[in-house]
């Protein structure tokens, strides 16, 4: 029904915005990309950026036009898809979903080569880590940016106990988990009174402290050289060594994690965590012991990182502090948030996405991390609540009306 003049106006504004945006980004990339020696100062690359931005803008416009009117069309389309998926997941019985998932996880690797199985094993390690962090961040609402420290504790526990003391994998697995849990509680005690972002920086600092210590304590950890020749796990005298055997081992660990986390989620403790996350004052008034609940969250979250660390050390047979950087913590946190905080299938999906995506992008080699960073922004802007939102997670982390620090004094 639109008159020509109106439709021209409808097109013109977004188009002029696209042109402006593409010029702006070209201008921004100009100083970094130009080379004073190249012909025309290497203007080619900024122009490519401009063109890229314009193409993205036009594509977005086209998609939003098709999906509905207005600029929010893309978001709405994605939101609807997410809701549909979520609805579907909600309709299907959880047990059926897990049974199908388990069957797929058990059978698919049989037809894959070593490289793909290795990637799947990595997915398993990260699923365990992300599910553990999900307890702390997703369920209890405590922002932890140093989670990788517990992973390092588990890995070094096995590395040191196996090379120095000669303990076996099965002896260290519970020990490493316990040790990580102990570190979790140790970290938990000083931060009991801290809220939100103060907690974030302290956990970040804790993670860095562990890494720096591992890097510099040469007499024990052999510093940046790492620990070599860590024993492989044995079952009844049979040594696990091929990728597929490791895959089934991590699958067992993932199953245990999923089972325990699901049970925890529905237990009294799980409800206490959610209550504390949504409103700690109200939770305390209802008789929840906040100190105990918080420490339990830190301890139980760290346990999984510890066991994942033990597994990682046994798989790699070599560990060094380089594997436990802040970036690793960030990636695990992204898995939790991207998948949908608090939702177990969501976190599994998030972990799988973030491990497999960079592998697929390996063909772009250099541009891999660039695309990865951009994709993180895009995914968050399109779907802030994660791929699969948790059904019980109706309240955002940190209610809007909480007292805020009076700033800029």
């Amino acid at each position, binding site marked *: 029904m639109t008159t020509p003049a109106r439709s021209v106006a409808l097109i013109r504004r977004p188009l002029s915005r696209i042109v402006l945006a593409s010029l*702006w980004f070209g201008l*921004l990339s100009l*100083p*970094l*990309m*130009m080379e*004073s*020696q190249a012909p025309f100062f290497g203007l080619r*690359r900024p122009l490519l950026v401009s063109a890229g931005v314009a193409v993205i803008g036009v594509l977005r416009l086209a998609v939003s036009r098709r999906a509905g009117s207005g600029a929010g069309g893309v978001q709405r389309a994605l939101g609807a898809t997410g809701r549909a998926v979520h609805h579907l997941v909600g309709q299907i019985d959880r047990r059926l979903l897990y049974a199908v998932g388990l069957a797929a996880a058990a059978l698919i690797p049989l037809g894959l080569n070593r490289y793909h199985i290795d990637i799947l094993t990595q997915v398993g390690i990260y699923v365990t880590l992300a599910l553990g962090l999900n307890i702390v*961040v997703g369920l209890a609402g405590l*922002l932890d940016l140093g989670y990788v420290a517990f992973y390092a504790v588990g890995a070094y526990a096995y590395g040191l106990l196996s090379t120095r003391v000669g303990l076996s994998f099965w002896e260290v697995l519970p020990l490493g988990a316990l040790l990580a849990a102990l570190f979790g509680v140790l970290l938990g005690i*000083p931060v009991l*009174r*801290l*809220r*939100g*972002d*103060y907690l*974030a*920086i*302290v956990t*970040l*600092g*804790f993670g*860095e*402290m562990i890494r*720096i*210590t591992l890097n*510099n304590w040469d007499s024990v950890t052999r510093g940046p050289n790492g620990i070599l020749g860590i024993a492989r796990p044995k079952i009844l005298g049979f040594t696990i060594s091929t990728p597929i055997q490791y895959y089934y081992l991590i699958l067992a660990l993932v199953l245990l994690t999923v089972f325990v986390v699901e049970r925890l989620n529905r237990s009294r403790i799980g409800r206490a965590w959610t209550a504390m996350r949504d409103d700690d*004052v109200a939770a305390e008034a209802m008789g929840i012991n906040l100190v105990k609940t918080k420490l339990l969250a830190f301890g139980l979250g760290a346990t999984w990182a510890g066991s994942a660390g033990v597994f990682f050390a046994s798989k790699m047979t070599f560990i060094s502090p380089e594997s436990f950087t*802040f970036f690793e913590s*960030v990636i695990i946190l*992204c898995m939790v*948030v*991207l998948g949908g*905080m608090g939702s177990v299938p969501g976190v599994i999906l998030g972990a799988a996405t973030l491990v497999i995506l960079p592998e697929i992008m390996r063909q772009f080699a*250099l*541009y891999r*991390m*660039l695309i*990865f*960073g*951009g*994709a*993180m*922004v895009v995914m*968050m*802007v399109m779907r*802030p609540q994660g791929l699969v939102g948790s059904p019980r997670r109706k309240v*955002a*982390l*940190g209610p809007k009306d*909480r*007292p*805020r*620090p*009076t*700033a*800029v*004094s």
Partner: protein
Amino acid sequence: MLLQQLINGLTLGSVYALIALGYTMVYGIIELINFAHGEIYMLGAYMGIVTFGLLSTLHLISPDSVVALLLMMVVAMLFCGACGVTMERVAYRPLRGASRLSPLISALGVSIFLQNFVMLAQGPRDKGFPNLFAGGGIDLPGARISAIQIFIMATSVMMMIGLQLLVHRTKIGKAMRATAQDMQMACMVGINVDRVISVTFLVGSILAGVAGILVGMYYGLINFFIGYIAGIKAFTAAVLGGIGKIQGAMLGGLLLGLIESLGAGYISSEYKDVFAFAILIVVLIFRPSGLLGEDISKRV
């Protein structure tokens, strides 16, 4: 020895403070830990090199002059300001009102993106930063302040005074303070909150850009990864002083610089980062909202 360590610490601290101001201002207004702030600082340092390179290729002015220095600073300020505003517009504004972790992840994404962008555009190797302050300085008994150190401290103090004037004496500063206190209320009394947030990012990024130039000249080498560690340090400084407080960021930055340089000088240089974090944890145990932060009682 002690005097020298104090001087080094204050130099480092004033740079941390400049970066920390950006964190704290953004946090004060939209409660976001802007993890990409460190990258803005890194971009500032690169802008210095790019400007210097351009000046020497074009033979416009002698690259060793004061004009070149000023030009480097101005270009870095302009570029970083533009980047900061663009970053907010693209990655954070669509997420306003979403759960608090979403913008955080988005910020981490921006950080990874910018790091890799610079690595691809400028190469992964260390780049030498032109030293415009070769030699010069003041000899004190048992210590020496080099010209560059004086320049860093003087510039930082000037920037901080400028910021104080902006926040307390201008209309936009008043609007910033109002928005930080209560965004909805500020909206109701007719403050353009979007514009205030943009200006906050602009100012914070300009400060970070200047810090980038200063550090580039101080250390003489930069690479695409410097923003990461500087960002973490500056964030620590902001929290140490009480995040959201401008004076807190200044105090926290200076303290952190001093702790680090004294720790490195007297105990062990390998563990200097550990001291910084350990002191932060100890301070937060006794003062959970930082040194200057107000202890906010819970509202039920």
